[in-house]
């Protein structure tokens, strides 16, 4: 048993942080989010150049062959810098689907281009009435010729607007809510009948409404087994959830550090406000939340690759409960302890608040994962 990062992991962290500290400061980020695309192709190319896009993928595709703990190192750094580029959507969702469920030709076609920064991906899953229920898929895939025709509506597709390639869940059998009958399809950006409506989220990321009106795909667009997509969806969403927990740890760390710094430098009544016990104890509780969040995110990243699906669900849901609670608690305290300044757009702390607030809602909120954890416990 040991908890140390390896030398490679430390190097990975240093390289990425060095890049983000110099090239992704608060002002640079503000310029990026103000552009029409909402992210930077230059930053994306630099991430590819550094090998960051290839961290979890097999070496035969040009990847690093890394573990989820390696990914934790990356996500923490991205979270601390509030990186808006579509890393989670491309590497954590799209790329993961291909790596886990794709055929050899699909992997060979997609992964090298993804790792090189040439293909961005997104996962089109959520539907208007589905909330966090992954079996709520009403989008239909009807056999037609040598393939299928897709028809349906997807909402809040993370980075769907910039994706070159979408993974779309659709029903080849059964009805909305059934566990069986869901299939996954690869859909290219230019496909006829595909309408993508891009929007900015509170935290300056992008989500899209995706409408599929008679979109034709071929045989080779099917990803994984026909009708058996749900277990793969659950597995990949759990993986992305573990990663977003690690990202949250980075953002929480920033909120902690910035707030502590503010308590030491902001003076009122002739003294630093950090000398007041009422504020000290609140700050200590922020530190405790940070340490606990880091621990549970570590547990999730170490265990998310287990073959035991019940254990994976249990650990990931535990992590998301704690992360959602800690994200709310720490972001609210950070704003409160910064006083009026915490409310302003000028400070990074308010942007950290926004990111943590959306992370709490993403991939299942605390209530969703409380119920899921309890269900995993009851079936254990």
């Amino acid at each position, binding site marked *: *048993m*040991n*908890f*140390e*990062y*390896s030398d490679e*992991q430390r190097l990975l962290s240093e390289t990425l942080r060095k890049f983000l500290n110099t090239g992704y400061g608060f002002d640079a980020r503000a310029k990026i989010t103000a552009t029409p695309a909402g992210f930077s192709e230059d930053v994306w190319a630099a991430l590819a150049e550094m090998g960051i896009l290839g961290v979890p993928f097999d070496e035969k595709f040009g990847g690093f062959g890394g573990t989820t*703990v390696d990914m934790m190192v990356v996500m923490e750094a991205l979270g601390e810098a509030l990186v808006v580029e579509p890393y989670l959507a491309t590497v954590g969702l799209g790329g993961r689907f291909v790596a886990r469920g794709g055929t050899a030709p699909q992997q060979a076609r997609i992964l090298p281009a993804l790792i090189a920064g040439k293909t961005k991906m997104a996962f089109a899953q959520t539907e208007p009435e589905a909330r966090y229920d992954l079996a709520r898929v009403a989008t239909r895939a009807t056999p037609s010729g040598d393939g299928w025709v897709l028809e349906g509506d997807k909402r809040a597709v993370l980075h769907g607007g910039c994706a070159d390639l979408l993974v779309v869940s659709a029903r080849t059998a059964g009805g909305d809510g059934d566990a069986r009958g869901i299939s996954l399809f690869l859909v290219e950006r230019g496909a006829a009948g595909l309408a993508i409506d891009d929007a900015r989220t509170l935290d300056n990321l992008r989500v899209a409404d995706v409408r599929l009106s008679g979109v034709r795909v071929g045989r080779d667009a099917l990803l994984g087994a026909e009708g058996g997509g749900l277990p793969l969806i659950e597995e990949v969403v759990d993986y992305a959830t573990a990663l977003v927990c690690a990202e949250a740890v980075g953002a929480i760390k920033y909120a902690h550090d910035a707030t*502590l710094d503010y*308590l*030491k430098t902001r003076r009122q009544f002739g003294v630093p406000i*950090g*000398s007041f*016990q009422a504020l*000290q*104890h609140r*700050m*200590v*509780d922020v*530190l*405790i939340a940070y*340490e*606990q*969040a*880091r*621990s*549970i995110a*570590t*547990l999730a990243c*170490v*265990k998310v690759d287990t073959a035991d699906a019940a254990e994976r669900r249990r650990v990931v849901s*535990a992590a998301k*409960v*704690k992360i959602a*609670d800690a994200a709310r608690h720490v972001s609210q305290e950070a704003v409160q302890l910064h006083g009026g300044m915490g409310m302003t757009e000028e400070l990074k702390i308010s942007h950290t608040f926004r990111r943590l607030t959306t992370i709490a809602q993403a991939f299942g909120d605390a*209530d969703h994962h*409380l*119920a899921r*954890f*309890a269900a995993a*416990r*009851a079936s254990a």
Partner: protein
Amino acid sequence: MDLNYSPEETAFRDEVRAWIGANLAADVRDKVLNYRELSKDDLLGWHKKLATKGWVAPGWPKEWGGTDWTVVQRYIFEEECGAAGCPPIVPFGVRMCAPVLLRFGTDAQKQRFLPRMYNGEDFWVQGYSEPGAGSDLASLKTRAVRDGDHYVVTGQKIWTTLGHYGDWIFCLVRTDPKTEKRQDGISFLLIDMTTPGITVRPIVLLDQSREVNEVFFDEVRVPAENLVHEENKGWTVAKFLLGYERMGTGNIAVSKRELARVKELAARAGLRDDPRFADRLTRVEVELMALEITNLRFLDQLRGGRPPGAEVSLLKIKGTEIQQALTELMLQTAGPLAQAFRPLEARAGFDAFTASLMPRYCNVRKATIYAGSNEIQRNIIAKATLGL
């Protein structure tokens, strides 16, 4: 990063588990698992078994009987003791006074006290708090006046845990009342509790248990050779000891056992599918899962030999909050029967275990108060870790 035990660590766990299985008496285990009072013999009996095995003081230097275990082995040992329902190793001797003697004691003091401490021949207790000196320990007033080869001690200690079992007590006393700083003028004395002039009186707690005491000193003559470290330098000793007092207060292994118990009771009470109960239980379980990793992360940092800092305060705060939450959940599983109390336990419907839940809930309120209240712990973290 690797959360799995190595083959050596697994073998060690099996060895500890087997030894506990063969050596923990069923009646003592039963008392622990059902929150019944442990006698002095129960506590010392277990201590002596561990001493014979060589496992009673893992943290001591090897020459004095330490085990030279890795931090993971120490964790495994605590885990197994907690899971099995072993009595606690009473901390006042081996975990508190001993590190002080090892750091500040003379060779003669070490030779005289450490082997007896190790073998459980004396029951040690702690004389720190006074009626006017709780969190503000430095305001203590118990006087020790030098008279030839002796100190004459007069005053009062309070909240002395298991003081009624005590053979020896280590005390902070004031040897110089005229110093400018209150922290100066304090000394650390070892006192034989059979010395004339000592009276121990019980304090009945809100669960009606006898656990803590008042200890009165009326011109008690203590040989000067029982002074540890220099006269008037006791505050240095006290600060050193506080770090050790807080260590191991995360109580994670015991909380894991209690959590399993809550689940069992909830299933029996038909609460398994109650969403309100399930949510409360899950939040506690998740917090405990995280704390276990936090504890391991801190232990890992100590692997390099760094002494524990304010991290232990964090473990104390979270660990005790979880302990208290678990006692509350247990009460909830008993519903209206949770009103039962010891005198009623023989009556129909009030089995002995159910009747122990309310007193236990009451008793564990102490956890966020003792060993430095959780507010004091927050002060320590604010100062030592955050630099506020």
